């Protein structure tokens, strides 16, 4: 059997789990229920792109990572990224389903901070993990009802997730250094299905950086679900960079729950080559909480990306802001679907969003759909969206000074992205984003 005609729905889940893990019963029950529902649940709705014919179920599940003895033994691609990270800061590397490397993490224990392989955390800190795992997505508290219902790609993660990370920052702990994660797929046909849980308790402060990658030459399915909890008065900067390869199909879900006066700052750099269907939801459930999204993306070749960004205001005086910019080359297709939803009772709230797409080819196609759903009178909401070609007059102006068309385009692209990239909290990550985008633009 070749990998591509293997369908995970044919799996004997009981056997697979029996071999692979010791998990609490509630986790196993969740897996089994989700697995049974795979074919009956609806597809997630990505409005302007049909993703139902992507090979979401064609992958090898529960593939292990390869442990390494030293940093130098890490795969080259991983090491390259590791070197762009903040050196000396706590960092872990997950390959496929396993944590294969960690450095500088032991210093965190003294402060009560937990950075643990999720499977491990389910054993070591079961009670704590249970309070959060699956809860931002489908917790039954009515504050947490997400903007999306259950669907088969989410269920696929619930059933077959493999590896991931649990990060916990206790009350009042303010970390000066970021916690960093590299998530790498390895092997032809591998399914990379991580679950990530990041918890920042009241008045804590954390910058979390993750980088997800897969090989350009390997068929891969990435189905990653992250759940992020920002406690009262806490601040979390969540930076996610993806350089998934061109034979990867990516389904990414991120759910944030922000308590009173908490602040969640998402930064997304979608600079890889995968076909993507992504949904990020921030639930502002506590008074005075805020969510901020900064995002850049670049698509080339026949790449298809659907980015769905949603901010949901539940509590009064909550704020959200989205600034997303995308570049489209060749015959890339890119959709930004940005939803600001202000629920009844969220008075005094303010939701803003901007999505701009720049196309450098007449075969490319971009869509920016701003959507405001407002059920409360006393609020402010604003949106701006644009899709257009690179400005010929500006290009000409730059070229009259001797820049080739390509160089001039590059300047305009970087200029277009600069207001977003310059706000990425770590400078080496900014530089990395530019390099990654440059590689796509000038291969």
């Amino acid at each position: 059997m070749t990998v591509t005609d293997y369908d995970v729905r044919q799996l004997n889940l009981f056997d697979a789990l029996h071999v692979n893990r010791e998990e609490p019963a509630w986790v196993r029950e969740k897996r089994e229920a989700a697995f049974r529902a795979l074919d009956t649940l609806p597809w997630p709705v990505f409005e302007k792109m049909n993703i139902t014919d992507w090979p979401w179920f064609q992958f090898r599940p529960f593939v292990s990572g390869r442990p390494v003895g030293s940093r130098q033994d890490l795969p080259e691609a991983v090491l390259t990224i590791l070197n762009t990270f903040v050196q000396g800061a706590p960092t872990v590397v997950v390959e496929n389903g396993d944590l294969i490397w960690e450095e500088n993490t032991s210093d965190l224990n003294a402060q009560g901070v937990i950075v643990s392989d999720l499977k491990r955390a389910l054993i070591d800190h079961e009670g704590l993990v249970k309070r959060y795992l699956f809860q931002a997505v489908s917790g039954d508290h009515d504050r947490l009802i997400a903007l999306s219902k259950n669907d088969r790609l989410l269920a696929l993660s619930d059933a077959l997730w493999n590896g991931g990370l649990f990060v916990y920052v206790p009350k009042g702990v303010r970390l000066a250094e970021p916690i960093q994660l590299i998530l790498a797929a390895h092997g032809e046909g591998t399914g990379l299905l991580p679950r990530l849980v990041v918890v920042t308790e009241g008045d804590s402060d954390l910058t979390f950086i993750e980088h997800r990658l897969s090989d350009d030459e390997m068929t891969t399915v990435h189905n990653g679900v992250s759940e992020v909890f920002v406690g009262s008065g806490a601040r979390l900067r969540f930076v996610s960079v993806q350089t998934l390869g061109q034979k990867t199909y990516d389904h990414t879900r991120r759910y944030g729950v922000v308590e009173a006066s908490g602040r969640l700052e998402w930064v997304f750099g979608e600079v890889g080559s995968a076909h993507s269907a992504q949904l990020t939801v921030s639930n502002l459930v506590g008074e005075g909480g805020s969510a901020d999204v900064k995002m850049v993306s670049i698509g080339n070749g026949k790449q298809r990306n659907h980015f769905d960004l949603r901010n949901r205001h539940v509590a009064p005086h909550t704020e959200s802001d989205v600034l997303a910019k995308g570049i489209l080359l060749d015959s890339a297709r890119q959709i930004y679907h940005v939803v600001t939803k202000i629920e009844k009772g969220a008075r005094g709230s303010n939701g803003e969003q901007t999505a701009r797409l720049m196309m450098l080819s007449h075969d490319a196609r971009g869509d920016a759909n701003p959507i405001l759903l407002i059920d409360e009178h006393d609020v402010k909401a604003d949106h701006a969206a644009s899709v257009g070609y690179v400005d010929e007059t500006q290009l000409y102006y730059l070229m009259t000074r001797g820049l080739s068309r390509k160089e001039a385009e590059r300047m305009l692209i970087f200029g277009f992205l600069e207001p977003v990239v310059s706000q990425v909290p770590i400078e080496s990550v900014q530089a990395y984003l530019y390099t990654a985008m440059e590689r796509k633009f000038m291969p």
Partner: protein
Amino acid sequence: MAKPVLKIEDLHVAIDGREIIRGLDLTVQGGEVHAIMGPNGTGKSTLAQALMGHPRYEVTKGTVTLDGKDLLAMGVDERSRAGLFLAMQYPSEVSGVKTSDFLRAAINARRGEGNEIPIMQFIRKLDTAMKTLEMPQEMLSRYLNEGFSGGEKKRNEILQMKMLEPRIAILDEIDSGLDIDAIRIVAEGVGSMLTDEFGVLMITHYQRLLNYIRPHFVHVMMNGRIVKSGGPELAERLEAEGYDWLKEELGIELEHEETDTTVSQEA
């Protein structure tokens, strides 16, 4: 290096199929300052843009060479690297691109890979040019022309010219929008570059600029042609009397008569 020579012969230029330049001959050499004057809409900017290679301006006939090389066969960026410079009447605003980054990229584009300008040398050169033009340092960290006042944009054009050291520069109404002091500063900035290796073609409506950079030749354009050429005294007479006497003398009717066909007094 030899004197630069820009040679225009029987040039015809059309925009959207409409002929704007209709047979124009002009030669500009290193060490020379040429002024082109003429009523609004007679094709002065069209000439400038066509020489630079703007894609909307179609050369339908004629030849242009720079130092003997066929300028019209070159792309816009090649013309620049060959030594042609155009200070535009309406410079573009480019958000997100810092003026200093842009200038460095432009300089390096002509120096070529592996021969990039050392950063300190770049900074010194920029510093000197900025001082000459009395431009504040903070302008460098702003985005290219974004939110610049009209006069600031014009200074920025001259700054770019000084940094790029072209062989032939076309200055399209570099004096419009400049205050009285700025005209002098900018004119001195241009004048200080005048050597045998640098020639200037200035498009202007006003005598004032010519007080600071004395032209060797003054040409009057009407209906897409140079209809009269002379020395500095021609510009003085136009300033004093307008274009009517010339139209009468030559028996010319302007085809696209616009609201302001005389030289107005306000700058």
